[in-house]
């Protein structure tokens, strides 16, 4: 029963709520709700006109049901009716309903706007406030269009009541955030700035929020706010705690306003005017001094409010980064908090110190707290505090303390929470590389990382250690020795096998002189791990073996024996089988010279930014401030709240895609570059096979590939090629034309033309295939079938309806294919056609253009939604990016048409850069739906594109990126 019933009690509502609370089960609750909904519906539909009270009561019940989590599909009209009631309480419920159940139902919106308009012009402050609250709560574009001119007028009008001004200021702020283009600056801007001088502190508080947001967007227009803000702040800081009456909060003078003013000042550099600057410094000093005074109250509210102002002041000091004494004082203050008994303060101090660590004035001062921070890492009970400690250690690390910090982080890693292990691994890897004086330490550190947290060591980390070992002669012998020793452990992590395989394959010779690590022992050691490893690692090991054959002729026989075994030569995995076959042949037929050339040591990698760093940046936790502070700061002052999305834009200008540096072994210039190619690129090797066998129009052979072709020239016959469809080349010339369209000619030769017409909806599709007989003779025994090979079988169902076995001369035969996408896929099915023409059997195989993007459903979304989702899909494996040269002219309209043809919704006005294209959609498969966001950034000067895909599934991102990249 209701505990209190103030104002108007709605008895019916209270009874209903009680009923719901008494329901014993979810089913009972739903039953009760349905009963109520039926009742309300009949009341609303009834002949008898409802009085205001009943209408209010029912609308309120509907609202309650909605807030319980049930859908409401009626009652909006009744709520809108309540808006024009002259009874305050009915109006209020009407507005609440509208605010909660935002519905951009267009006919209702105009009615709602009408009611709001009436209330705004009513000159009744209570009604005006209700109307303004509603605009601020809904904040839709339609409302912005209707009221963007009116609200500023109310805000600056001389006769507006204070409470209305407050609502108007925040209402305008909301409209500016959602539809900035509809809220142009005007002559009201200067008058808004002067609200900082208003007598009513409530008005100043609301206005400061508005001004801060506007100043972040156009700092020039609001420059005058700096001196006013300093003056206001100074008055608050120096006031006695009782001066501000109710704006004093637990003995702290106007903490909300102080914090907002300090935030506003963070939109600007230190004031140039000496007097203002002096006054501000005085304020900041006073705030720092107050922290040392004994508390005026034991209540936590007092200390929270006081420290809130203090932390904001420290943020401003760090932002200005110009007063060494203030910075050091701030650091000392935070140092005190590091040992405070309040967990909240320890947490905030760790966080705040991270930014301080990057200032040259305070870096040394921060470093003095290292022991405390290490202690926090070991003793804090709360994982989020420990995470801040890791961040701070990372931020304060430099050459002088790197060994200590890395050692502490490593030892923490053994017991660290699973949620933060990967980040710690990345951080340790970066620090070890950045501050390595001798690379033996670096190698040891990374191997320890794999030992302690192998599962959390991402590919970037082990790629990087290999890049570094390859590039530095002095560490190669040590690395070989160390991995050899590490591999002795009976159970070692697969990542260690990868690193071990690669390094011994390259530099095993450096330790082969020692009888304890003779070639045969090395090989046996590696091969003892082989059977426990996954396919990609086995592929890597096979490459290591062929390298061994070159390094150590004495083990050639042993290795050939291994390669020749059925488990290799007939391995079910086509990649492993191919490697075994090729390496075995290579070792048999190539002369020592050729072998030595092909299997030469890897050349040094070009020095690039560490891909690990890129990965950590992508993770972009607050702890990374240390690395890109400058960048961040610029964004914060210019763009304020939108810093994150502008950083994606600025990243977009980086010359190298982070992925490009991710695979250490993919070097187009290297001989036999594919030998160590990572599994994702291993398909090249396959492609190469079919190039030789079928002379198909495969992608242009790279330099490395052509070398292999030379090696095998004259031996093509002996070269065993697995082609599951033994009918000859699969035609795919026109394949990529169909990625962005559904109809057209797929294939044509002298006899036959194949046309396509297809339609797709969600995860289903239908394709009409037209076989045109171009001759005047009948085709006999005509049969066309669709084959899905390998993995595709499980991913895609294609059902071909049987067609006539004859096609008359000049006639056309139609066949219907029904398609179902089960899960995301990469390969395309093959259409095999057989027929007899003039006594000879014709075989044609054509790749069918059924591509993943066909199962796209476009999704419209606002800029805000887009970037919100974009950020949510920020995990490294979810994003795939490609930078490539334009193959066609860079026409905007053509590009738009292609993106739409690709299946995504083309979102206009979402990207801050009008020349970029962004799209969104959902890939429908039977098993799941995958949301996809894409962004295409053309660079007309360089004639280049950068394409970024983010989806919830890495494989989908990769496939879509590959498909779309081909199109421009």
């Amino acid at each position, binding site marked *: 029963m209701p505990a209190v019933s103030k104002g108007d009690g709605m008895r019916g509502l209270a009874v209903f709520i009680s009923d719901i609370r008494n329901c014993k089960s979810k089913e009972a609750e739903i039953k009760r709700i349905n009963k109520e909904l039926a009742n309300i519906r009949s009341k609303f539909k009834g002949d008898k006109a409802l009085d205001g009270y009943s209408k209010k009561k029912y609308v309120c019940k509907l609202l309650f049901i909605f807030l319980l*989590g049930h859908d409401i599909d009626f009652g909006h009209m009744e709520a809108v009716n309540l808006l024009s009631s002259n009874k305050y309480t009915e109006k209020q419920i009407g507005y*609440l309903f509208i605010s909660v159940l935002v519905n951009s139902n267009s006919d209702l919106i105009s009615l709602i706007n009408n009611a709001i308009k009436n209330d705004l012009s009513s000159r009744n402050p209570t009604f005006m406030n209700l109307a303004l609250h509603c605009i601020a709560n809904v904040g839709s574009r339609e409302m912005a269009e209707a009221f963007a001119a009116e609200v500023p007028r109310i805000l600056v009008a001389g006769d507006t009541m204070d409470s209305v001004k407050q*609502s108007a200021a925040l209402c305008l702020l909301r409209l500016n955030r959602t539809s900035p283009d509809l809220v142009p600056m005007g002559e009201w801007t200067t008058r808004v700035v002067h609200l900082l001088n208003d007598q009513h502190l409530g008005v100043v508080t609301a206005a400061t929020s508005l001004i801060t947001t506007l100043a972040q967007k156009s700092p020039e227009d609001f420059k005058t706010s700096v001196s006013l803000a300093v003056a206001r702040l100074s008055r608050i800081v120096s006031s006695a705690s009782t001066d501000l009456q109710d704006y004093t909060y637990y003995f702290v003078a106007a903490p909300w306003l102080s914090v907002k003013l300090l935030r506003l000042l963070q939109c600007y550099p230190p004031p140039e005017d000496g007097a203002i600057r002096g006054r501000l410094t005085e304020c900041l000093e006073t705030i720092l001094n107050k922290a040392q005074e004994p508390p005026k109250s034991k209540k936590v509210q007092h200390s929270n409010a006081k420290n809130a102002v203090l932390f904001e002041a420290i943020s401003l000091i760090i932002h200005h980064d110009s007063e060494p004494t203030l910075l050091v004082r701030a650091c000392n203050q935070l140092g005190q908090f590091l040992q405070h008994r309040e967990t909240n303060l320890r947490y905030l101090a760790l966080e705040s110190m991270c930014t301080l660590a990057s200032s040259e004035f305070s870096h040394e001062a921060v470093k003095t707290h290292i022991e405390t921070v290490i202690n926090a890492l070991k003793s804090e009970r*709360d994982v989020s505090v420990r995470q801040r400690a890791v961040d701070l250690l990372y931020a304060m690390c430099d050459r002088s303390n790197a060994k200590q910090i890395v050692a502490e982080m490593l030892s923490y890693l053994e017991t660290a929470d699973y949620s933060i292990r990967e980040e710690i691994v990345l951080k340790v890897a970066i620090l070890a590389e950045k501050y390595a004086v001798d690379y033996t330490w670096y190698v040891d550190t990374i191997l320890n990382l794999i030992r302690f947290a192998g599962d959390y060591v991402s590919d970037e980390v082990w790629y990087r250690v290999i890049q570094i070992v390859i590039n530095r002669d002095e560490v190669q012998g040590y690395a070989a020795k160390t991995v050899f020793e590490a591999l002795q452990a009976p159970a070692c992590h697969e990542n260690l096998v990868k690193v071990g395989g690669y390094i011994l394959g390259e530099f095993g010779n450096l330790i082969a002189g020692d009888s304890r690590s003779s070639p045969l022992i090395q090989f046996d050691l590696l091969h003892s791990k082989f059977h426990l490893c996954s396919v990609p690692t086995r592929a890597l090991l096979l490459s290591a073996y062929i390298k061994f054959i070159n390094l150590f002729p004495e083990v050639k026989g042993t290795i050939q024996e291994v390669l020749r075994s059925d488990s290799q030569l007939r391995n079910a995995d086509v990649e492993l089988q191919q490697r075994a076959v090729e390496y075995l042949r290579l070792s048999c037929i190539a002369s020592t010279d050729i072998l030595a050339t092909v299997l030469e040591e890897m050349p040094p990698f070009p020095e690039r930014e560490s891909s690990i760093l890129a990965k950590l940046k992508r993770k972009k936790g607050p702890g990374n401030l240390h690395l890109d502070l400058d960048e961040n700061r610029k964004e914060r002052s210019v763009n304020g709240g939108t810093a994150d999305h502008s950083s994606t834009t600025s990243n977009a200008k980086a010359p190298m895609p982070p992925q490009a540096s991710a695979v250490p072994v993919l070097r187009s210039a290297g001989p036999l570059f594919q030998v160590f190619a990572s599994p994702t690129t291993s398909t090249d090797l396959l492609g190469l096979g079919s190039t030789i066998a079928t002379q198909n129009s495969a992608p242009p052979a790279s330099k490395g590939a052509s070398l292999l072709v030379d090696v095998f020239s004259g031996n093509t016959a002996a070269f065993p090629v697995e082609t599951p469809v033994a009918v000859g080349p699969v035609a795919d010339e026109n394949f990529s034309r169909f990625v962005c369209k559904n109809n057209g000619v797929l294939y044509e030769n002298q006899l036959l033309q194949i046309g396509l017409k297809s339609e797709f909806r969600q995860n289903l599709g239908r394709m009409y295939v037209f076989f045109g007989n171009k001759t005047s003779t009948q085709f006999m025994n005509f049969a066309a079938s669709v084959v899905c090979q390998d993995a595709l079988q499980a991913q895609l169902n294609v059902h071909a309806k049987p067609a006539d076995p004859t096609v008359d001369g000049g006639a056309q035969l139609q066949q219907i294919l029904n398609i179902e996408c089960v899960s995301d896929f990469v390969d395309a099915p093959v259409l095999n056609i057989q027929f007899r023409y003039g006594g000879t059997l014709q075989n044609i195989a054509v790749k069918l253009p059924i591509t993943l993007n066909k199962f796209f459903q476009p999704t419209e979304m606002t800029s805000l939604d887009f970037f919100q989702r974009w950020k949510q899909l920020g995990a490294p494996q979810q994003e795939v990016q490609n930078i490539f040269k334009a193959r066609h002219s860079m026409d905007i309209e053509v590009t738009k048409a292609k993106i739409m043809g690709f299946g995504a919704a083309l979102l206009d006005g979402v990207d801050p850069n009008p020349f970029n294209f962004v799209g969104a959609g959902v890939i429908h498969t039977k098993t799941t739906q995958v949301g996809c966001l894409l962004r295409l950034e053309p660079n007309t000067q360089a004639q280049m594109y950068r394409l970024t895909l983010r989806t919830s599934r890495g494989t989908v991102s990769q496939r879509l990126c590959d498909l779309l990249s081909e199109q421009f």
Partner: protein
Amino acid sequence: MMHFLLLFSRQGKLRLQKWFTPIPEREKKKIVRDMTTMVLGRKPRSCNFLHWKDLKIVYKKYASLYFCCGLDAEENELLALEVLHRYVELLDKYFGNVCELDIIFNFEKAYFILDEFLLGGEVQETSKQVVSRSIEASDMLQEVSERPRSR
């Protein structure tokens, strides 16, 4: 700015939800789920702040109710705690020793009070007196207009 404010019970029952940015219903449900599991899973005496995606989460428990809000990264966590506290004080003042049941049975009032205090995710009025006065004034309006109904 504040993106959302949620009130939920120890059992994870949502008692009040206020969204200051447009978010689709499905997404809202997901956020509510994430928040309740995350916050309810915290050990006692942990700190009141969390990171979740790009937001700072600040929460505090009052009797049987958890107050939880999501903030932009540049917001001040300590002051957000006091925003929660001030809201509790306002509810307390209005209901007189507020309890979870008051908020369940008078949810509309809880929303009205919130609207007077926070607007568009920013603090509108920090003075307890001013907010209480305007709530009382609107209650007076109600009573005046309700009287002839004599219900």
